[in-house]
C-alpha cells in the first residue's frame, strides 16, 4: 500500500532552483493536491517522485522503500498527463491494454482489468476509436483508464484538466475524485487551479518559488490561512494595511504562527489609512502597540449597507459584477483602498454604481497578519 515520503528534496536546473528542500509525507489512501502558480516547482516534485527526473539532493520513499535510482518503469505508479499523451497510433483499447501487455500479465487477467477500467470511465463503448477521433474530455478519460490499468495503487495526476474546456473540467474533476476514492488509491494531483484543488483533495500543498508555503485541508486553507500568500491564492481576498493603536486587556496568547484570530485573546483596534479605525476581535498577544498589520477579509464576509453601521467604513461603489447567484461590488473606501464585497442576490436591495455606502467589517470574520517586511504586493504576487 503506497505511503509516500519526500525527504529533503532539492532540484536545480543550472542556476534555477525548482525545488528547495521539500519535505512531505502522504498517507496511504490520501488525495493530496500540490497547488501553486506556474513555475513554483509543483510539476518538478511529481516528476521526481515518479522517477522521470532525479533529484539533485534528497530521497523519495514509497512504502518506506527508498526509490532513488530506481527507473520509472519499476516504480509501479499510474501517471496522468496534462497533454494526455494517449499513444496516437493505438486504439482506445490498445492504449488501456498497454500496461497489462508490457507487464506480461496473463492474457485473461489483462483483458479483464482493461475492460473494467474502461467501463469505469464509461469509455468501453469507444474502444475501437483512435485518439484523434475523441474529444478532449474523452481522451483524458481514456488517459485515466490507462493509468488505472497499471494496477498501481499510487496515482499521479499532472495538471490533468488544464488542457480542457472550462465545463468539461468541472465534470471530470468529480469523476477523478470518485474513482480515486472508490478504488482506495493514493493520489497526488498537481494543478494551478485553486478551485480544482479544493474540490478534489483531502489536503493541499501550496507551493511558491520551489518551496512549500502551507499544507492543510482545503477548509483550513480557505478559512484560516496561516499565510498572506495562501489567503490570496486560495480564493480571492481583500487586504488592508494598518497598525495597532489600541490593545485589549485580555491575556496574551501564546500564538506565534498564524492569524491572530486563532488566539483566544481580547479585541484590539487597528488604525488604517486616513485615520479610519477597525475593531479586530481576538488579536493575539504577539502584537504590540504600533505594530504594522495586514487585515484580510474574503468578499463574502464583508457586507454593504446604505446606513451607518458599527465597524464600517464609508465608500463609493465603482463597479458591480453579476456572478450568477450573487452580486459582487467593488467599493472604493474612504481610505482609498478598493475592496470587493459579495452580496447574495436574495438581498433584494440592489446597489448602484457611484452610490455611497458603508462597508461593514464584521470583527470576527477578519484575519490579521503582521505586515510583511518585503511589502504586501511582493508577498501577494501571483507571478
Amino acid at each position, binding site marked *: 500500500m503506497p505511503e509516500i515520503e519526500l525527504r529533503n528534496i532539492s532540484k536545480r536546473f543550472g542556476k534555477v532552483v525548482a525545488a528547495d528542500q521539500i519535505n512531505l509525507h502522504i498517507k496511504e489512501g490520501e488525495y493530496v493536491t500540490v497547488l501553486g502558480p506556474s513555475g513554483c516547482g509543483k510539476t518538478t516534485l511529481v516528476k521526481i517522485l515518479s522517477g*522521470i527526473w532525479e533529484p539533485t539532493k534528497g530521497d523519495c520513499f514509497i512504502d518506506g522503500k527508498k526509490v532513488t535510482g530506481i527507473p520509472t*518503469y519499476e516504480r*509501479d505508479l499510474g*501517471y496522468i498527463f496534462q497533454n494526455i*499523451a494517449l499513444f496516437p497510433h493505438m486504439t482506445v483499447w490498445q492504449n488501456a491494454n498497454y500496461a497489462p*501487455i508490457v507487464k506480461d500479465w496473463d492474457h485473461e487477467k489483462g483483458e479483464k482489468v482493461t475492460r473494467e477500467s474502461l467501463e469505469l470511465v464509461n469509455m468501453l463503448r469507444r474502444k475501437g476509436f483512435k485518439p484523434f477521433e475523441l474529444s478532449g474530455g474523452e481522451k483524458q478519460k481514456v488517459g485515466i483508464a490507462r*493509468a488505472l490499468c*497499471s494496477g498501481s495503487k499510487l496515482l499521479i495526476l499532472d495538471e490533468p484538466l488544464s488542457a480542457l474546456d472550462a465545463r468539461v473540467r468541472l465534470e471530470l474533476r468529480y469523476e477523478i475524485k470518485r474513482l480515486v476514492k472508490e478504488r482506495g488509491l493514493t493520489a497526488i494531483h498537481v494543478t494551478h487551479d485553486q478551485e480544482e484543488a479544493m474540490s478534489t483533495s483531502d489536503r493541499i500543498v501550496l507551493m511558491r518559488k520551489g518551496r512549500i508555503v502551507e499544507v492543510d485541508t482545503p477548509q483550513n486553507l480557505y478559512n484560516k490561512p496561516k499565510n498572506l500568500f495562501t489567503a490570496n491564492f486560495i480564493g480571492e481576498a481583500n487586504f488592508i494595511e494598518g497598525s495597532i493603536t489600541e490593545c485589549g486587556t485580555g491575556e496574551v496568547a501564546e500564538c506565534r504562527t498564524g492569524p491572530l484570530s486563532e488566539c483566544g485573546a481580547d479585541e484590539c483596534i487597528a488604525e488604517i489609512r486616513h485615520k479610519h479605525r477597525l475593531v479586530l476581535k481576538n488579536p493575539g498577544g504577539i502584537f504590540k502597540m504600533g505594530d504594522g498589520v495586514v487585515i484580510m477579509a474574503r468578499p463574502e464576509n464583508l457586507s454593504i449597507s446604505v446606513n451607518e453601521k458599527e465597524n464600517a467604513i464609508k465608500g463609493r461603489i465603482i463597479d458591480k459584477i453579476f456572478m450568477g447567484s450573487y452580486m459582487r461590488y467593488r467599493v472604493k473606501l474612504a481610505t482609498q483602498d478598493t475592496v470587493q464585497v459579495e452580496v447574495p442576490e436574495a438581498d433584494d436591495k440592489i446597489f448602484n454604481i457611484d452610490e455611497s455606502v458603508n462597508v461593514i467589517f464584521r470583527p470576527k470574520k477578519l484575519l490579521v497578519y503582521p505586515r510583511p517586511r518585503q511589502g504586501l504586493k511582493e508577498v501577494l504576487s501571483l507571478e
Partner: protein
Amino acid sequence: MSLAKRIESVLSRKGTVKAWYGIVILFFLVMVIIPTLFVLSYAITDWNNIQSDIFTTPPEPTPQLIILESGNTKLAFHTYDIIDITIYNQLGVVIDSPGTVRLNYTVFENTDDSVKTYFSKGDELPSGNYNIPILANSTHNEINHVGTVTQNVTMRDASGNYLDSWEGPLYLRAGSARPMDLIWDAMKVSFVIATIVTIIDFIAGLPMAWLMVRKNFRGKKYLDTLIDMPLAIPTAALGFSTALFWAVTPKIPGAGLGLTSSPFILIILLHIVFSYPYMVRSLAAILHEIDINYEVAAQTLGAPPLTVARTITLPLFRAGLVTGIILCFSRSLSETGGTVAALAMLTPWLSDMAYPMQTGPTLIGAWKHAGGFEPQLAFTAMLLVLISLALLVVVKIVIMKFKLPLRKVMPGPERLLSKGAVPKLKDALAMIFMVLVLLIPSFFIFSFVFTGEPAPVDWGTFWLSMGFSFLVAGVITLLNILFGVPLAILIVRGKNKMLSNILDVLVNMPLIVPTAALGVSLGMFWNSMSIEMALFLVISAHLAFTFPLVVRNVAGALEELDPTYEETARTLGAKPMFVFKKIMYPSIKFSILAGAIMAFTRSLGETGATLAVVKDANTVPVYIVGLVKVGSYYPAALACIVLIAITFITMMVMRYITRKAER
C-alpha cells in the same frame, strides 16, 4: 507619405503581390522543374535512337591484330564497338569502350616455376563485365584469346617497377556489351549500394539521433558539430580521402589502412560518410517532435526503455524515417565526384569508362566525357529520374504500411537489455562508428600532405577553376534567395491550398533526382533551345538541384512561426510588405542564411551535375577529380584542402552568426 511608404504600398497591392508570385512560379517551372524532367520527353521524340542504340545487340566483331609498340599512347581500333585501346604511360593495356568490354579470352600468368591462371583457357567467363588490366607483379602476362595464339607482354617486374617495352603483337577479339546491359548493371550497382548504405545509416544513425535528442551530456554541442563535418567537405575530396584511408591504392601503397580493394565495399564506405549526417539529422528532427510524454507515459505504465522504443517511438517515427531514407538514398544514388575519385584511386591505370564497377552517375559522367552518346545518356538519366521518383512513392507507402509487432512482448529480455551495460555499449558503438567510419576517413586527406610526395601544383588552373566555382555558387545563391523565399512563403502561407500542395511536392523533386541525371536533362533542355554557353548551363544545373534547399529551410522556419503574429500585425495597420519586413523576415532570416550557405557549399562541391551538363566545365571538384584520375595526388590533395578550408570557414561563420543571434 514618405517615398519608402509609397513603394511599400505599391508593393503591397494585391496585383503587385500576385504578379510577383506569378513570376516566381514561372521561374520555378522554367528554370527548375521543366528542365529537370525534360529528359522524359526524349523517350517520345527520340524513341528510334534509343531502340537502335540501346536495345539492339551490336554485331559480333571480327578478331583484330593490334600491334602495341613502345611509346604508343593511343591506337585506333576500327570495329564498331571498341573505341580505342589506350596505353597510359606504359602502365598497362586498357580497353576503352562505351563502358566496359565484355571479352571472351583467357588470362594466365606464367612465372618461372608455376602457371597461375586467372581465367582458365577455354572457360566461359561468368557473365559480367571484365576489364582485363595487364596484371601486376609478373614477368609474363599472357592474354589468350580462346583458342588462339599467345603473346607475351611484359609489364612490371617483381619489385613493381614498370618496364619500358614489351614484344610483339597482341591478338584480341573484343565485342562490346549491349549498352542496355551496361546501363542495367550500373543501375543495379547504384540501387544495391544505395540500399545497403541507407540500411547501415539507419542502424548506426538511430542510436546517435537518440543520443543527441534524448540524452544530456557534456560535449553534446561539439558532437552536434562533428556530425555535420562531412557535409562541409566536397564529395570529391571525401572520395579521395576515404579511398586513401580504407583502400589498397596501387599508386601510393601504404598510405592508409589498405584494407580493401573491392570497389563495391569502398563505395559503400564512402557513401555512408556523406549520407549519415542526413539520416541522423532527419531522425533527430522527428525524434525532437515526438512528444517525450508518450515515452514517459509508457514508462510509467511499466515499459522498460527498449519496449518503449519498439512499441511507442518507432511507430510514431515513420514520417521522419521516410525523410531520412529518401535523403540518404537519393544522396547515394546521386553522388558522382567522390565515387569517380575513389574508383580512380583503386584502379589508377583504368580510364573512367573502364572501371570494374560503374554506378549510374559515373556511367553518365564517362559517356558525357567521351562525347556522342546522347541516346545512352538520355536513357540512363530517364531511368534514374523515373526510378527515384517511383522510389519516393514506394518508400512512403511501404514504411507507412509496415507494422511493428506490438502484441509480442518480451518483457524479460527487453527489461534485461534496457539496463546496465547494454545501453552503454550501444552508445559507445554509435560513437565508435562515427569516429571510425565518418570522421577519420573524412579528414585523412590532411595526413597525405605530410606523408605524400610533394609535386608541383598548377595554381593558375586551380584558381581559375576556383573563380569559376565561386561565380557559379554566388549567382545561384542569389537567385535562390530571390525566388526561393517567395516560393516558400507561397507554399506555407498561400491561400490556395491546392497550389501550395502541388508546389510543395514539385519543389522536392530536384532533391530526389540524381544530379547527374538532372544535368543530362538540363543540358538537353537548353541545347534544344540552342543555348550552349557553359557558364549558363552550369549555373542553371546548380540552380536546379540547390533550389529546394533554400525553399525547404525557409518553409520549415515559416511553419514554426505562429501566423497570429502576422495577422495581428495586419490588424494593427501593417501592409503585407511591412509585415514581411518587420515580422516575418526577422524570424526567418537565419533560415534564409542557412539555406543559402547550404546551397553555396553544395554548389561548390558538386561534380555530377557539372560533368553531365557540359562536357568540360571547369569547377574545382571537376578539377580535383581530373587530377585524381591522372594520378596527380599531391596537387589534388592540396586543392581539396584549400576547398575544404574555404567551405569550412563559410560554415563556421554561419554558425557563429546564428548562435550569436539565438542569444
